[in-house]
């Protein structure tokens, strides 16, 4: 019999062995960290989705902050 580790590696095999509720709780922890780091709730643009529309799907930065833009560059 093929063991999960042989197919998907240790990490995913361990994830498979969790119960649904355990997986949910682990994801919640990940969410807390993500939000604490300032993660954005905007979904990533999904260019293959039938709903994708470039002007409506432009994401904010993943950290939710304004992006940096170089306005002037000094000579090297």
């Amino acid at each position, binding site marked *: 019999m093929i063991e999960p580790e042989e197919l998907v590696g240790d990490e995913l095999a361990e994830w*498979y062995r969790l119960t649904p509720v355990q997986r949910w709780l682990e*994801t919640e922890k990940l969410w807390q960290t993500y939000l604490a780091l300032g993660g954005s709730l*905007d979904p990533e643009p999904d260019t293959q989705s039938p709903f994708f529309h470039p002007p409506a799907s432009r994401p904010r930065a993943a950290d939710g902050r304004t992006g940096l833009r170089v306005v002037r560059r000094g000579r090297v």
Partner: protein
Amino acid sequence: MGGQACVLYGAAEFSRDTDFAILAGASNLARLRRALAELQAEVIAVPPFEISYLHRGHAIHFRCQHPEALRVRLDVISKMRGVDSFEKLWQRRVSIELPDRTKCEVLSLPDLLQAKKTQRDKDWPMIRRLVEAHYFSNRSHAMLAQVRFWLKELRTPELLVEVCHSNSTLTRRLSATRPLLLKASAGDLMGLAVELETEEASERERDRLYWAPLRRELEALRHAKRG
């Protein structure tokens, strides 16, 4: 029915929005409107939140403005390609109670897989992982219905070969509807991988065709909105 359902069934997914399959009836939509009002959810993009769009298979997209759910994205859909009516989905749903006693009503795994058979690259590895997780959790005490499910849905060549070898009669019977099972019975991993790719390409094409008129309708709505 989206990323959160996939997590419950075994996928490692980090989805930033929440997708709901809903019954698009007048009274249910009235309840949904009240819930969305509580969340201060606003429709974003097109189409507008109207029952006719849900009946035609469109999804409606919302963003919440309530401080406790600020900027959370919600999508609702009522009709999906190749997926049964909401009534049947509801009968087959799986109820999962979370530690805080919140009850989640989730699409059954076979229905979730059907909903995931789209034109998008990212859905196909997900389907594979979901069936693998189900197989590894249940193979030691498998019931006939589960073996049938694996023979119909597994997308991992090595596991398909394993299931076919221990269920030859059922494999022969189901190969009429899924011919690639013959490659699996023969232990032909390379041939099986090719057949799985063909099967995927064919589903993706069906999804593209299904969405073509809906995409045109969305484009017309965007055009009208721009004026």
